């Protein structure tokens, strides 16, 4: 990876993020932005981050993963656990950095371990096994009970009583109620920095020798292999990095809300599917696109809030129509014929 030699496309991406950051900061300082909008800024960032990470797996590696919410969950729980336990022992800044490292490493480890069996499979089978792993992770986190008292650490996968804790002991993870009282260490600036770092990692990887090897595997596995590319190594590399980025997003998630629970809304297969929607609508393999799609699609239901009950209905219709307009061969033909004057220079794939 050669730092310092960015392509124009990469620089534009960073510029967009920085510009968006500055605009948001100005809006906040001048008081134009509502408090509701302010609350959305960090979630937008972590969804953009996970979309960027997933695009590495789906777009660059070409393997459909439906388990990224699980990796996010691993990052969230491991970092929240650390922050919660050390809240009074370590000052905020180093604590968050260590938590971030822990979250990313644990998610990467989960990605690595799950990648070994999963990457042997192909296509939809791979997708369904990643979905299965994601659900397993969510389920296990929902069943963990962890607490401390004077005799040491107690752990159970069944219920509170079977931990056998002394009265007055401190409960750390309370099963489905998760971890309550994680310090809110993340803010918009940190979120933007992590987003920039994730973009940097992915974009650099894509334009590096390793990235070209990964894309070669995607485009033609046999040809790549006969050119001496180590398939296992590069597949694992991409999958692990992708999981690690999802973990970073999970760290932000956990430190943005005070009580962390492994609900299916945030960490179930529904969430993984939502990430996939971001990636596909943003353009498979287009890193910047998936980031922008995440921002727009996350904002859309919020912007439609005035329509209250109808907003999710409209969201789904928009989703279907966007897919039909974007992808159907007939619509493409129509655009070529009648709307060619609107055509913006297309980025090379």
């Amino acid at each position, binding site marked *: 990876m050669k730092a310092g030699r960015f392509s124009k496309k990469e620089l534009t991406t960073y510029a967009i993020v920085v510009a968006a950051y500055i605009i948001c900061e100005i809006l906040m300082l001048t008081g134009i932005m509502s408090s509701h909008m302010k609350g959305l800024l960090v979630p937008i960032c972590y969804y953009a981050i996970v979309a960027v990470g997933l695009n590495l797996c789906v777009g660059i590696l070409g393997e459909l993963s439906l388990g990224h919410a699980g990796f996010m969950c691993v990052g969230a729980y491991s970092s929240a656990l650390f922050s919660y336990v050390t809240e009074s022992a370590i000052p905020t800044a180093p604590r968050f950095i260590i938590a971030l490292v822990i979250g990313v490493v644990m998610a990467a480890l989960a990605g690595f371990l799950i990648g070994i069996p999963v990457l042997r499979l192909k296509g939809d089978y791979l997708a369904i096994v990643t979905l299965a792993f994601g659900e397993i992770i969510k389920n296990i986190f929902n069943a963990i009970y962890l607490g401390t008292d004077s005799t040491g650490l107690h752990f159970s996968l069944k219920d509170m009583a079977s931990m056998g804790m002394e009265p007055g002991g401190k409960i750390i993870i309370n099963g489905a109620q998760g971890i309550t009282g994680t310090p809110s260490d993340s803010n918009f600036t940190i979120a933007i920095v992590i987003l920039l770092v994730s973009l940097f990692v992915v974009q650099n990887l894509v334009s590096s020798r390793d990235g070209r090897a990964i894309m070669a595997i995607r485009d033609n596995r046999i040809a790549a292999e006969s050119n001496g590319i180590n398939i296992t190594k590069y597949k694992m590399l991409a999958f692990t990095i992708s999981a690690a980025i999802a973990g970073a997003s999970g760290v932000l998630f956990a430190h943005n809300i005070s009580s962390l629970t492994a609900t299916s809304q945030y960490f179930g297969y529904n969430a993984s599917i939502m990430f996939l929607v971001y990636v*596909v609508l943003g353009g498979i393999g287009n890193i910047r696109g998936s980031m922008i799609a995440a921002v727009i699609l996350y904002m859309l239901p919020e912007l439609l809030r005035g329509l209250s009950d109808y907003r999710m209905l409209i969201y789904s219709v928009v989703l279907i129509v966007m897919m039909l307009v974007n992808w159907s061969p007939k*619509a493409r033909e129509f655009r070529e014929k009648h709307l060619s004057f609107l055509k913006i220079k297309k980025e090379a794939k």
Partner: protein
Amino acid sequence: MSFLTYFINGLSLGSIYAIIALGYTMVYGIAKMLNFAHGDFIMVGCYVIFTIVATMGLPPVAGIVVAIILCTLLGVTTEKVAYKPLRNAGSPLAVLITAIGVSYLLQNAALLIFGADTKAFTPVITWQGIVLADGALKIQGVTIITIVVSVLILVCLQTFINKTKAGQAMLAVAEDKGAASLMGIDVNKTISLTFAIGSALAAIAGALMCSAYPSLTPYTGAMPGIKAFVAAVLGGIGSIPGAMIGGLILGIIEILGKTYVSSQLSDAIVFGILVVVLLVKPTGILGKNIQEKV
């Protein structure tokens, strides 16, 4: 004896999964797409029956018939409007995302029409069931009927596919669309027929499922849908006996896991089994063997 009761309950739940999985596997085999909205067809079927039986006070049979007809229409229309334009889109992901959109659409439409509160579904099967071994073994009517219906459906489907012209056309389209159309098979019609059958099965599954577990929300169909898909993959996707076997295994493991291991971890166990099976046999129990070496 209690083990036998749980086993039979598992068999019944597995039969429901199997019926849903049959629809899934047929659609997948022929259109090569994961129809994520399939689970929501079940939910639509349930709400239709609920409306007709509980609100309008008509007999359950009327409810089931109307639900089957409406679900069939819904399936065929969805395919025509949302999936067909994307059939040659270049990426299989395009139609997957549209299916997710349809799933959201159905869920939110149901949310608007019926509200978010859980509806108590009136079971369409009123038979109390049988008592064996001096009361030690009680089998509910819905359990027996579910198992019988699923076996009937399997036999009918197998006969339909292997003995009729339309069924053979389905196999041909599943194998090679281009070649099939060159042999004079109407590919569009065949795909529509597949969606019609799959959606009708979803309505039947809905009626059985909501009779056994009578609580109905707009999200009722989502998880069984996913589980049924897991069952289809477990049995070898595209294979009809495979879907049946996969569904039964899944249902039995789920109920036994819930009872003997941990109720919280039952889903983890179900998905764990899927992982193990696919690692040993990557194309499912009855699937064709193509392995990706890494």
